[in-house]
């Protein structure tokens, strides 16, 4: 899967780097100074690189925990995100990462200890408040779990702090480490779901809807709080039938009464990212849809967005209580 590893000189001896290097004994290993030297370089083609991304092992510097966008909120007031990885194993055509980064290589920041420290400092700053941390902003939280060991490291940390919540946002079925662990009510495993036709047409390399549902069911049975993320909602001909069918499929298997949260999101891309993605995929049907630019964001027309949101919210109310529902505006 990974045949090239770039390693920052400064973290080559880090135990996590060493373990990962051992995992890929046949890979070529290239030492670098700072990941930005190659990751941020101009004149790279994300689409071509996506065919064979390399893994870059790096140290995250600067601010490690940042304020999260309000549309991520799932009931909490203090929302933060941290990115132990940049880029994703999967290749969803609507993903903003393809417009944000010049390179499709995966960057893994191995200094988890520094993230932990930053999380603890954030918690200590307002110890009487609940803090929500989101880890799947610049990557899929679980997709590379066997390589990163993210869950292994961070679960115990969140277990220790009663005011710390974590959302793992994923389309992955890499849930073994979670199943081997005692569920924690403050760690929400949030699965992004789309109708199967969208999965097939736009969510390349991701597990099928059936496989994601099977993973959800296993985790839910074991007691893990589950979040469902219908995000982004994708407009297409007959979308109502496809989303209605999706909700049926989901709630035939998933117990809605035990869900932590269900959120919906619109397709929104910063205009600059959108232009960049369009350059990479000029012939992509998704971008031929009724999109328009407004205030630096590209999205479906306002009334269409609202129509889709209203339809899906109404449909979901058949199964989900109002307080579980979080429509992102």
């Amino acid at each position, binding site marked *: 899967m990974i*045949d090239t590893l770039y390693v920052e000189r400064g973290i080559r001896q880090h135990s996590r780097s060493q373990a990962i290097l051992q995992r890929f004994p046949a890979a070529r290993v290239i030492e670098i100074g700072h990941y930005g030297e190659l990751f941020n370089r101009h004149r790279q083609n994300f*689409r*071509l690189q996506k065919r064979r991304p*390399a893994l870059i092992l790096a140290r995250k510097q600067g601010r490690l925990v940042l304020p999260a966008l309000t549309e991520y909120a799932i009931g909490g007031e203090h929302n933060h995100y941290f990115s132990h990885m940049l880029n994703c194993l999967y290749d969803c055509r609507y993903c903003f990462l393809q417009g944000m980064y010049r390179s499709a290589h995966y960057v893994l920041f191995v200094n988890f200890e520094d993230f932990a420290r930053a999380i603890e400092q954030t918690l200590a700053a307002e110890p009487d408040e609940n803090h929500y941390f989101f880890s799947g902003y610049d990557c899929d939280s679980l997709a590379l779990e066997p390589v990163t060991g993210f869950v292994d490291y961070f679960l115990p940390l969140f277990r220790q702090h009663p005011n710390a919540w974590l959302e793992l946002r994923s389309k992955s079925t890499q849930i073994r480490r979670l199943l081997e662990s005692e569920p924690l009510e403050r760690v929400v495993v949030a699965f992004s779901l789309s109708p199967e036709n969208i999965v*097939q047409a736009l969510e390349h390399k991701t597990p099928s809807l059936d496989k994601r549902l099977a993973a959800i069911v296993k985790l839910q049975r074991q007691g893990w709080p589950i979040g469902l993320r219908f995000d982004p909602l994708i407009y*297409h001909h007959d979308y109502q039938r496809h989303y209605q069918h999706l909700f049926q499929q989901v709630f035939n298997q998933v117990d809605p009464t035990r869900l932590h949260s269900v959120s919906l999101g619109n397709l929104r891309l910063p205009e600059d990212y959108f232009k960049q993605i*369009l350059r990479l995929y000029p012939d992509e049907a998704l971008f031929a849809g009724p999109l328009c630019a407004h205030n630096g964001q590209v999205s479906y027309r306002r009334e269409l967005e609202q129509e889709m949101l209203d339809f899906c919210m109404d449909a979901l109310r058949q199964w989900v209580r109002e307080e579980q529902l979080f429509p992102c505006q």
Partner: protein
Amino acid sequence: MIHLLTALPCEARPLIKHYRLRPVTPDSPLRLHANEHLRLAITGVGRDNMAAAVGYLQASGIPREQAAWLNIGVAGHAHKPLGSLGLVHKAQDDRGSPCFYPPLLFHNAPEGAELLTSHTPVNDYPDPHWYDMEGYAFFSQASRFTILELVHALKIVSDNRLNHSEHVSAALVEELVAAQLQAIDEVLRQLAELQQSHADITREPAGLQRCLQQWHFSHYRKKQLQGLLYRLQAMDEEIPWTKLEGKKSAAEVLATLERHLDQVNIVFPTPRSMP
């Protein structure tokens, strides 16, 4: 088209023979040989010659998005056996300029080589580098003209601590390059495939030229037209030429295409499992 660059005639000879390249433009300042898919330039030794040759090839009329670049040449290494082949995965120079990391998208790529381009010959070959005199200039020039994925270098060890560079003859270099032709073939094949993918991504949409010939589009409107034609293509829709007949201006053409597109459904095929 792939631009192949070698510093020395003896590096080029096996390639010219193998790929049946014919001399071109006898009055050019560079020695050039070409066939339908490859254009080989013998640049002369050193970074200035390499940089000039890249510039010359770029100016020779092949559109940027239709070209990939490959430097093939000999190099020194501390202990690798003569004839070892390396695909450069990191290139730096002896002036401390930023390194190049060519993205490696090849299947079964040759061994990786960390190249150090030196402006003077290196005799002690400190590890772990491969040493040459023009590779870095090749990367820094060629990457100005295309994406990094399409700029690569293959190096073949011609000298090491046991066989110093003063003993390297033209005949030996020819022999060493000839021995790697199969591997070079494979890299060229995959590079051509990548170049084609890039050309496909950047290809202008069908119908663009016909529209530009028929109506006058400003630069801004041309961009809009391009976007609309791509959208039609993405939806597998024909260009509605009959609706465009009689339109007097670019604005009318754009409005007609917009209206047409608004009526087309975006369909993502329904999976068989769905009732």
